């Protein structure tokens, strides 16, 4: 099966239906391992037990950006190649990305209270993530506000690509401005500086959440394809009426 075959929505549906149970199972197992590992991780000498929040905060934070990246690729697919599945991928990803972003914000706040003494601070990292969240909401609103999916897809694609400028700002905000938030310790030039005792559970959790995203995204894409089929058939039904 080549990539070109996947372009066919029907082919895509068959493939996902076969793949989804396996993906879901794998995600579940990895999540369990990751949770166990993070429960067993030692306390940090500075942060105490609150370091456990890291194991869910960081994967969610990474995914919040990664999902926008996926949507940007899909946007290119929509605008440049006019690929039918690209619209579907972009639309299906937005609510999931919004959830991850919300979780990154919420767990960050819950971590910030004990660490910085405040839930919220208007610093560059935090606000740029909040902007990301607002842009996710804006995109979802746009998708919901426009009935014609292909029209909405092109508009959303333009907006997604423009919003992608926010990603490097989020990533490097800690380096460009001195912020409360700590600088990168895993995804940085010159390798991770995090202790192995934290690094391994973190990486497992990150992998588990990525798989979770993949699973949910494929399932949501399947729903979206079905929704379009329903819409097309309903339109057809309406025009068949005498």
């Amino acid at each position, binding site marked *: 099966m080549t990539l070109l075959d996947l372009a066919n929505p*029907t082919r895509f*549906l*068959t493939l996902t*239906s076969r793949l989804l149970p396996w993906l879901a199972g794998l995600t579940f197992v990895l999540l369990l391992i990751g949770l166990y590992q993070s*429960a067993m991780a030692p*306390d940090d000498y500075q942060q*105490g*037990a*609150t370091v*456990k*929040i890291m194991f*869910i*905060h960081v994967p*969610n934070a990474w995914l919040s950006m990664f999902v926008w990246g996926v949507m940007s690729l899909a946007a290119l697919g929509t605008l440049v190649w006019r690929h039918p599945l690209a619209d579907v991928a972009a639309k299906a990803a937005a*609510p*999931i990305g919004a*959830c991850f972003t*919300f*979780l990154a914000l*919420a*767990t960050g706040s*819950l*971590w910030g*209270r*004990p660490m910085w003494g405040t839930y919220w601070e208007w610093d560059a990292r935090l606000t740029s993530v909040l902007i990301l969240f607002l842009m996710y909401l804006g995109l979802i609103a746009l998708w919901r506000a426009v009935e014609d999916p292909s029209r909405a897809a092109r508009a959303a694609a333009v907006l997604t690509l423009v919003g992608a400028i926010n990603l490097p700002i989020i990533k490097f905000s800690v380096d460009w401005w001195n912020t409360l938030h700590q600088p990168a310790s895993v995804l940085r030039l010159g390798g991770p500086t995090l202790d192995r005792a934290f690094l391994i559970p973190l990486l497992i959790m990150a992998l588990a959440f990525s798989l*979770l995203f993949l699973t*949910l995204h494929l*399932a*949501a894409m*399947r*729903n979206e394809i*079905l*929704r379009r*089929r*329903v819409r*097309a*058939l*309903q339109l*057809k*039904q309406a025009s*068949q009426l005498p």
Partner: protein
Amino acid sequence: MTALSLGPYAPFIVSSYLLVTVVVAILIAWITIDYRRQKQRLRELDAAGVVRRSGRSATEFK
């Protein structure tokens, strides 16, 4: 396994894990319910005798 000792900030840790669980659960639930709903609609359209342009029935995957 010894009981986890989460120190003075236990409420923050527990609530963040809980929050993640709840949100992910809502996401999963929404996606499954959505799937059921779309399949249901397709079945109704099939029953109403509307066929796709390719001539296949509405619920057919292949």
